[in-house]
């Protein structure tokens, strides 16, 4: 792998104007800003209705400096296919096409179009920014909301079901590249985007996005909470290159450390998990430990 990017050699060119309409402390504004730096100027974006629609601003003003097509909720990946098809007819093989959709727009309503495009092998990058709920419409549960999270439509019992593992679903499409990233580790995101630009077919990125209003924490703690998710082994940073899985960045380092921060700290930092009992947290801890035992064995 190429030399890792650091804050000193990260390109200074910005593709997101300052002063977007994102909430204070929005994790997406970090991932989007750094993600566009990695994608570069020769890029066309596709965005379905989501927090990003709001972040980008209201007509006739836009906060993104790249061309962007806003499309219907379910059609991000199909629209990316359409742009690619036109570029092909024009003999353009250099422009990158990138879809940026939320977790609802990906794991729920957009999954069919995404699966279709991935199966066809259409050459674009799909980003799912996962703030674990329909945050733009007022914090309702989505397919990727984790078990135990209180949302506007799981108001008392919290979500009773597991988080849908979308990167695993996409990996099952035998893609050239699948990555799990976090807004709390933007340079890992940057390096991963750079490393896969040349790979064929559909590339899938899943980005964990701390969300102050949706998760219930003071906006200044977004990065801390994003990091806690990784340090507790609850959310892992990894990439799957042509079927080869490997942990990256802070998750990779956890293999050497062999010590995870108790997941209780992650849960107790957010009000959405307030209804989780100690027994439930212990059960989740047991599952995390089992998963990591597997990683440790694989690493030996």
């Amino acid at each position, binding site marked *: 792998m190429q030399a890792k990017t650091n804050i000193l050699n990260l390109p200074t060119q910005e593709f997101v104007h300052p002063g977007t309409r994102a909430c204070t402390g929005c994790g997406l504004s970090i991932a989007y800003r750094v993600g566009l730096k990695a994608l570069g100027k020769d890029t066309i974006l596709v965005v379905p209705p989501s927090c990003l629609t709001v972040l980008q601003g209201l007509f006739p003003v836009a906060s993104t400096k790249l061309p962007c097509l806003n499309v219907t909720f379910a059609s991000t990946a199909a629209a990316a296919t359409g742009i690619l098809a036109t570029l092909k*007819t024009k003999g353009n093989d250099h422009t990158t096409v990138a879809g940026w959709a939320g977790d609802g727009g990906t794991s729920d309503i957009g999954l069919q179009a995404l699966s279709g495009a991935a199966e*066809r092998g259409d050459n674009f990058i799909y980003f799912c920014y996962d703030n674990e709920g329909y945050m733009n419409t007022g914090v309702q549960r989505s397919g990727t909301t984790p078990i135990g999270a209180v949302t506007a439509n799981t108001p008392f019992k919290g979500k009773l079901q597991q988080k849908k593992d979308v990167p695993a679903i996409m990996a099952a499409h035998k893609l050239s590249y699948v990555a799990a990233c976090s807004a709390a580790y933007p340079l890992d995101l940057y390096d991963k985007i750079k490393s896969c630009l040349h790979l064929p077919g559909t590339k899938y990125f899943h980005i964990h996005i701390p969300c102050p209003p949706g998760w219930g924490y003071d906006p200044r703690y977004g990065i801390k909470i994003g990091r806690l998710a990784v340090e507790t082994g609850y959310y892992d940073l990894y990439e799957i290159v042509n079927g080869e899985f490997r942990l990256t960045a802070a998750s990779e380092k956890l293999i050497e450390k062999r010590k995870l921060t108790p997941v209780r700290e992650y849960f107790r930092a957010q009000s959405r998990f307030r209804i989780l009992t100690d027994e439930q947290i212990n059960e989740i801890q047991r599952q995390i430990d089992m998963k990591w035992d597997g990683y440790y064995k694989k690493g030996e």
Partner: protein
Amino acid sequence: MYMIENGNTAAALGVKLCRAGVIAAYPITPQTPLTEKLSEYVELGDMKAEYIPVESEHSALAVCIAASSAGARVFTATSANGLLYMHEQIQWASGARLPIVMCVVNRAVGAPWNVWNDQQDSISQRDTGWIQIYCCDHQQIIDTVIKAYWLAEKISIPIMVCYDGYILSHTYMPFDLPDQEKVDAFLPPFQPDYALNPDEPANLNTVTLPDVRIDTKGQLAHGYMEIRYLLQEELRTTLQIAADAEKRFAEIFGRGGNPYIEPYRCDDADYVAVGLGSITYQLRVCVDTLRKEGIKVGVMGVRYYRPFPDAVIAGALKGKKGIIVFEKALSYGYEGALASDLKSALYEHLAGTGSLPAVQNLIAGIGGREIHTDDLTQNLRAATQGRISREPAWIGLKI
């Protein structure tokens, strides 16, 4: 060059002659032979286009919307539930002002499942801001596809070219295949005002406010309402531009006529049958029969359903004793949508003139129920002798 082929092939040949650059389609009967034919042209290299075999009709139109936004001439086709599944994208395409051409091979919608012909599918999309043109034979199918691209790109409004499933899509008829050079002369390459481009970034279809707003240069930009008003205004002026398209087409190809309506023996008629699509050609046989009996009837096919050529229709029907609207679709809970629209046009243009004809509504061929010419003749004769019923009368109903 004259050839004998089916209606779906006529449509496919039209799309090929128009050099569509991106085609996206999902299979549904009776549309499938049309898009199979296009995939054949592309794989054989007879047509230089990207053919995208999408996983749903919703995505078929998503591909077309995006490809068109990026500057390609695009095509898709569907039928029945496929068209209904597209509904969100259909509205999006007209709101985004994209010159997409789509063939709708008319078929009944579920439930219950039925694969045969009626027109409930496209009639259900009446209010979406698309132009709808109905065809009566294979020559009209291929010619309309070619005219549709010219018109759509002139005004940036998408067009549905509608023709009856099986009755036209799967039957073989002779038609003239236009020369490629003539089509190229008629239809220049697609050059949109803006296409997605990193050198000239723009954010398309962003959230637009209820009121107007100043842009970064201090200019007043449209609100949502202004954008929608312009769609309505430009759809109405399309009626004039359609005449230009017809004239241009006639100059190059030597055929054409009234783009909005197709009257047959209407001039001296007391009663006129009105309909959309192939049924109006079948009704010509009924008209000939009744004329022999001394009943002065004619038939008028409506080719443009949206925008509705109200003035032309009212002008053609002025002073008639009765209009009998035959429809293969219903606005359930009331009557056929064409009958309602026609009454509205007659009222608007003829109320108070003393020449307002009575209108009757007959429903036929729902879900592919065989339409016997004798039944049509009998009903048309009965309608000239008095009102059959206040409610729409169903022809061939066995209940």
